[in-house]
């Protein structure tokens, strides 16, 4: 049976494609290692299909440095659509991850990440100002889907806590059993 580099066996595979538009302020390497261990320890192989820095025109850079618009279940805002259109030819399956300079839902509301996406465009947006846990958290939302409740947990030992900035540095938050049961039903998970 296939195992990942941390020795976790592969029951299912989570294929992600990571596209950077901005330099993350969090430790990118730690974010990836954490996601590998978190999903891997639950039998889900964290499979990175591609990691790319996107080359944008000057106009695109200005427009997409900060993603503006609503972050809601099962829909994209216009700039999320623009992001996805940049890479859709490169993705045949899996979930796109965009690392951007910032995310704003209004002139005042700043987000660390957004997992809302149109049903046929599976993607998450992670702000460069997020934490090393934000990427794994947003992918958790995509896998759990809008039907799962509660959307956020209050314990900082759970990766789906509201606000990963509340997770102590160096700790390893997990999913609970109910979340794992739901995640393993996700249509986004592939065979190993």
């Amino acid at each position: 049976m296939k195992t990942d580099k941390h020795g976790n066996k592969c029951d299912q595979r989570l294929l992600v494609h990571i596209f950077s538009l901005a330099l993350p302020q969090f430790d990118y390497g730690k974010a990836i290692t954490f996601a590998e261990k978190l999903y891997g320890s639950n039998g889900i192989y964290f499979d990175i299909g591609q990691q790319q820095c996107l080359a944008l025109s000057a106009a695109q850079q200005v427009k997409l440095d900060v993603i503006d618009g609503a972050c809601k279940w099962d829909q994209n805002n216009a700039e999320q659509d623009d992001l996805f259109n940049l890479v859709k030819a490169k993705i045949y399956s899996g979930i796109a991850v965009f690392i951007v300079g910032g995310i704003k839902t209004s002139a005042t509301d700043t987000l660390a990440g957004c997992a809302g996406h149109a049903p046929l465009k599976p993607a998450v947006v992670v702000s460069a100002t997020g934490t090393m846990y934000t990427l794994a958290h947003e992918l958790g939302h995509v896998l759990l889907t809008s039907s799962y409740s509660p959307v956020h947990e209050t314990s900082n030992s759970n990766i789906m806590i509201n606000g990963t900035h509340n997770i102590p540095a160096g700790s390893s938050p997990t999913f609970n059993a109910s979340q794992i049961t739901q995640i393993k039903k996700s249509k986004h998970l592939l065979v190993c």
Partner: protein
Amino acid sequence: MLGAALLFLAALHVVTTADAENAMTETAKMTEDQLKLRVAERYKAVFGALYFQNPVDHAYVRLPEIPAADFVVTGQTDRVWSVAHDPLVGAIVRASVSKADGLVQFDQIDLAVE
């Protein structure tokens, strides 16, 4: 005189109990829409003018208004209904509405930023 006073108090007690029972009956009969509206109105009254510090950029933002329709009745016990607003991002609100008197207790108010 003392007898009259006791009679008055006894009558008052009966009225108070009856009122409470009526209130409980009325509250227990609330529809889902009425429950959600009650929580939305109390949320607006209690938290509508408060500011919350956004943990990402540390700016102070006003707690957003939440339409009654966006609340969800998530469960009930013998004594309360549980009502929640649990979005992907925005204000997280969890409240309990007493079946006895309709009082709304807010169990959690938070701001989801990811």
